[in-house]
């Protein structure tokens, strides 16, 4: 057997059930991860990153590596949502912090 077909067979064997059952794809997962990453950078720039955001993001990348694209998309969406919340919090605080200040 030539090496190429062997690789193909191995690849098919590794195709996860999720990818066959649903319509989640590698490209979709990568897109979701990239979108989350952009929001995470924005949150970092506002000095307000949440641990939960990073945990979801790590989970997304781990799922993507395993080929579980549906799980990767879901976790990336969760990371993006959390990053959005932390950005909103930071924006709110820009206006609100002074009301907490001792005067």
């Amino acid at each position, binding site marked *: 057997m030539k090496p190429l077909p062997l690789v193909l067979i191995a690849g098919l064997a590794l195709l996860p059930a999720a990818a066959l059952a649903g319509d989640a794809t590698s490209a979709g997962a990568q897109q979701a991860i990239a979108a989350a990453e952009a929001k995470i950078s924005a949150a970092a720039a506002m000095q307000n990153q*949440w641990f939960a955001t990073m945990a979801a993001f790590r989970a997304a990348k781990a799922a993507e590596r395993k080929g579980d694209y549906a799980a990767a998309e879901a976790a990336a969406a969760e990371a993006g949502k959390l990053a959005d919340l932390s950005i909103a919090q930071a924006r709110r605080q820009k206006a609100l912090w002074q009301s907490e200040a001792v005067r």
Partner: protein
Amino acid sequence: MRIGLVVLALLAAFSAVPVALAGAGPDPAADIKAFQGHFRTELPAIPLAAYVNGPYNFPGSGRAQWKQITEFPPYSFAIDSGKVLFETKFPNGKTYTSCFSEGGIGIAGNYPMFDPKTGRVVTLGVAINRCRVANGLKKWPLTKGKMADLVAYMTVTSRGRPIDVVVPNDPRALAAYEAGKEYFYSRRGQLNFSCASCHVQAAGKRLRGNVLAPALGITASFPLYRSKWGSIGTLVRRFIGCNKKVGSVPDKPDSAAYRDLAYFLTAMSNGLPIAGPGSRP
């Protein structure tokens, strides 16, 4: 009611004055007065200088054990090690004394300090690292280990001297101060707490077995030995821990954010005595 209206108008005019002043920019002196006044009013039983003992001003904080261990404090090893580090010559023959005013003795209360050359705030740890780099050595991590030991020694030579953080009338210094103030009062993390939520609004209250130290005097006992750490740590190590508590990813130990935060927070305790190194449960 004409008179009533006039009175109201006058009141409005007067009450508008402080607002207008507040809008004029950072006023550290006024902030310090208000900050110390707040605690004097809220917790009048605590003498001003006793705030440096943080949680031990409150029942259930392990005050009795603390009194006992001050006879052979767990940070004494750090002081000894710090003294050796302080006196050991660099490869070029100089020592840390060459980098500090007063030869580095009794000056911990002047930090964090604004450096007009770089326009940045320099904590004692950052100043030590600058000294090391200037003498051909590598930086140390700012949170623990040798850095904490050396800061412990330099701090013990300053014990009892007043904290005297200067915010000069330089727009960059005032901006750093204001950034530190904003950091202190801004809610962050998934728990949506600011430093002030715990250390101002809930000062003296208990949280999961710990007594929340009042923000006044909160920097004065650093570096401190914590049983939970099993070692001595610097103020920035504590910042990292408190950020994590609320689910917020901490900043870098030498970040502008933490330097500015230390600048603001230490300045609030101006006039209180240096008490470090300290020990905590």
